[in-house]
């Protein structure tokens, strides 16, 4: 005899699965809400940067100026393609993939094609080191939630433990981890640079057409090179970087031919997992000792001097004192 339920039909296996999955999702969201730590959020940001498709408009503020840009990023099976388009001012446009960059400057009738030099781990990540190492030099705190680009975003504060580096205030999309806003903060708490999405679609399909340049290419004179840059990893050097703030480790050491003038350039890259310091060393041309001193380009500080007839430049998104400190410890080993 078949039993008859008067009020509802027997759920199917498919329906049971759906309810189960929904329950797990709700539970996961609840657990995430309760237990996600700043390190979890940083990892989530890191993963999203490498895995998530998105299309949106963000503002970039620096030195009292505001720029508005459209960005599209597609990650397909680990292969990343991006398009960046300036929405105010001149219609400059950048298109890049994992190895190349095309720069459109139609207002000056110029285009440039370039090969990228990126780390072996792929395109740059926000968190390159593990969290325990980062914790030696930064304090991470929760900052609550905010609404950014009509999405719920979680705030993480990254506070440096010494004066050699800047701090960050980050807002990550709650659902995907995509970084929706990033403030670079100096030692006095002033925001030096800020990136913030004002409109974004995440996890969408990006058609090929969205990654093609929209700039008028008819009158551009193109510059570029048929071959990748000549560079090679280096393990030996006559140069000694005698002092570097705690937590910074050598992550890259390459030699390459300078494209600007004849001669080899030695490039050492140090990172503490969040910020990066570059050291460039190049032999000075005869009769030219170059300039000495501090340079500032937005959040980037650079200090340059001549040592043993070599032009040495230390550069990074770090305080001016840091680049000067590093440079003063550089010496030539006979």
């Amino acid at each position, binding site marked *: 005899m078949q039993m008859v339920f008067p009020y509802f039909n027997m759920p199917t296996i498919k329906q049971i699965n759906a309810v189960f999955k929904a329950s797990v999702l709700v539970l996961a969201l609840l657990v995430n809400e309760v237990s996600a730590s700043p390190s979890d959020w940083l990892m989530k940001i890191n993963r999203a940067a490498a895995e998530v498709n998105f299309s949106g408009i963000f503002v970039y503020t620096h030195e009292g*100026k505001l720029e508005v840009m459209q960005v599209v990023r597609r990650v397909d099976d680990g292969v990343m393609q991006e398009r960046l388009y300036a929405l105010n001012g001149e219609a400059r446009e*950048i298109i890049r993939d994992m190895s190349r960059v095309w720069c459109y400057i139609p207002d000056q009738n110029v285009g440039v094609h370039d090969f990228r030099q990126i780390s072996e781990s792929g395109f740059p990540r926000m968190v390159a080191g593990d969290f325990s190492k980062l914790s030696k030099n930064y304090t991470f705190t929760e900052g609550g939630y905010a609404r950014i680009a009509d999405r719920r975003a979680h705030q993480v504060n990254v506070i440096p433990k010494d004066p050699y580096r800047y701090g960050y205030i980050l807002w990550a999309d709650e659902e995907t981890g995509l970084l929706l*806003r990033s403030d670079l903060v100096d030692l006095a708490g002033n925001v030096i640079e800020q990136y913030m999405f004002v409109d974004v679609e995440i996890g969408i399909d990006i058609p090929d057409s969205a990654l093609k340049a929209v700039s008028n290419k008819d009158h551009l004179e193109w510059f570029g*090179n048929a*071959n990748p840059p000549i560079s090679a990893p280096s393990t030996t050097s006559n140069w000694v970087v005698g002092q570097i703030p705690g937590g910074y480790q050598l992550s890259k050491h390459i030699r390459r031919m300078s494209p600007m*003038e004849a001669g080899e350039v030695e490039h050492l890259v140090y990172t503490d997992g969040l910020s990066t310091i570059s050291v460039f060393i190049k032999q000075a041309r005869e009769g030219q000792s170059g300039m000495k001193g*501090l340079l500032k380009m937005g959040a980037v500080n650079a200090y340059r001097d001549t040592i043993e007839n070599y032009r040495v430049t230390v550069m990074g998104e770090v305080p001016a004192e840091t680049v000067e400190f590093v440079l003063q410890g550089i010496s030539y080993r006979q």
Partner: protein
Amino acid sequence: MSEKISALVDEVLLDEDRENQFGQILSDEQATQTWQRYHLIGNVIRNEVQSTGKDLSADIWSKIEEEPTVLAPSPKKRKDSKSADIWSAAGLFAVAASVTLVAVIGLGPLQKDDQAGQVALNQFVDNEVLNSSLDQQRITDEFGEMLAEHGEFSSSAGLNGLVAYAKLVSNQAMDQ
């Protein structure tokens, strides 16, 4: 010429044949002339910055103004494909950046940083360096090159690698 190169770039990804063509284009005389014009753009931007009267050290610019009419630095020596090979394409992109940085550097780097108490730091140890716009351009190119390369390894800001390019686009836009 520009149409030819533009056609290559339209395809976004260049195959081997196109790359060969690319190299050929870059090595010919017309491209060299274009290169000169390209550097001229930098001078134009520089002059615009100069006209604002606030971005660049008066001393530096007064020296440059005293120069006879030197509108562009000497063209890069790219007479054959071999020399083109030596050129790093990364640097060529940096050149695009440096067109901007002619102005960008003027926004602060070559000025004294009184606020930081580092007045003595911004001195040119060899005045010859800035005695001509050629040298000014050389320094600018060099910093543009370094900034672009550093940007590829820098992950300090939020948008993971796009930041460096956003800066370039932005900087160029703001200097119009």
